[in-house]
């Protein structure tokens, strides 16, 4: 499965309005709920926060990849959020996170789950690509950037 198959304008939020880690996660989950992708946002929030409690998914260079394996989704789901102002996500390098890829997957989709996370890991190695995303002003622009890359 190509990552682009998971990315539509309705699962991209620019800009995120939240200013804390739990609020960012909640905002991304609410976006997926609004898009009709999930039924029980509270359970999913708990799953993602439980994973965060084991160690932050805030990486380097303003990127965070919160994720969870949960029975509360039927298919692989990706939510993308951009917070140009930066949010303290207890990231590895201590810098605020600006670009969020939240991946949710059911337990029986381990293969596609790994494949999608690997693809995110690869694309986020390109600082130029991430800078373009962070500068995007709309969900439409984010989708276009992924298509053009």
């Amino acid at each position: 499965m190509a990552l682009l198959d998971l990315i539509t304008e309705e699962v991209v939020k620019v800009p995120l309005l939240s200013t804390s880690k739990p609020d960012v996660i909640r905002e991304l989950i609410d976006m997926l709920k609004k898009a009709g992708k999930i039924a029980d946002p509270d359970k999913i929030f708990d799953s993602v926060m439980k994973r965060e409690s084991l160690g932050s998914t805030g990486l380097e260079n303003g990127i965070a990849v919160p994720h969870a394996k949960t029975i509360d989704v039927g298919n692989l789901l990706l939510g993308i959020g951009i917070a140009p102002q930066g949010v303290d996500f207890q990231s590895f390098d201590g810098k605020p996170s600006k670009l969020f890829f939240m991946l949710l997957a059911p337990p029986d989709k381990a293969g596609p789950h790994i494949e999608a996370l690997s693809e995110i890991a690869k694309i986020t190695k390109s600082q130029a690509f991430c800078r373009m995303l962070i500068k995007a002003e709309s969900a439409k622009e984010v989708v276009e950037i992924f298509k053009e890359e």
Partner: protein
Amino acid sequence: MNSLIRNILVYIDGSESSITAAQYAICLAKTVSAKLFALYVVNTRALTDLVAARIFLKEEQDEFQVDLHQDAERYLNHVKNLGLKKGLEVQTLSLSGTVNQEIKNALAAHDIDLFVLGETAQVRSRRDEFYSEAERAMRGSTCSVLVVKDEERVWNVFDSFV
């Protein structure tokens, strides 16, 4: 025809398209009296990379490795049963490592002359083309490759195939 295709390998990754490819390969193997291998590769390289990228914790790597091995067993058993339904014994192979490399190794180890795989996601960006494991396996294959398309037609053919 029999001498042209003696050993077929179908790559299974758990996707619907790979199961369709297995159905096609079963019909083809029976038709040309070829031996059919079904391969699933547990992508341990990706797990290692995710830990290195700090996206995964070591505990997640271990947990997902177990999940992936269970997936391999489940999907390969499914393909084996599909073969049995059509009177064909499918030899299943479960390997671990880098997907495209393990496919290449299996093609050589079993003297495969036709590599069958499901339709890959429609390439809509240069990145998709570069990162897709199936794309890379297809390009790296040393034997002929058959990409199975038109799932509905294959399902119908498989259902009525005797």
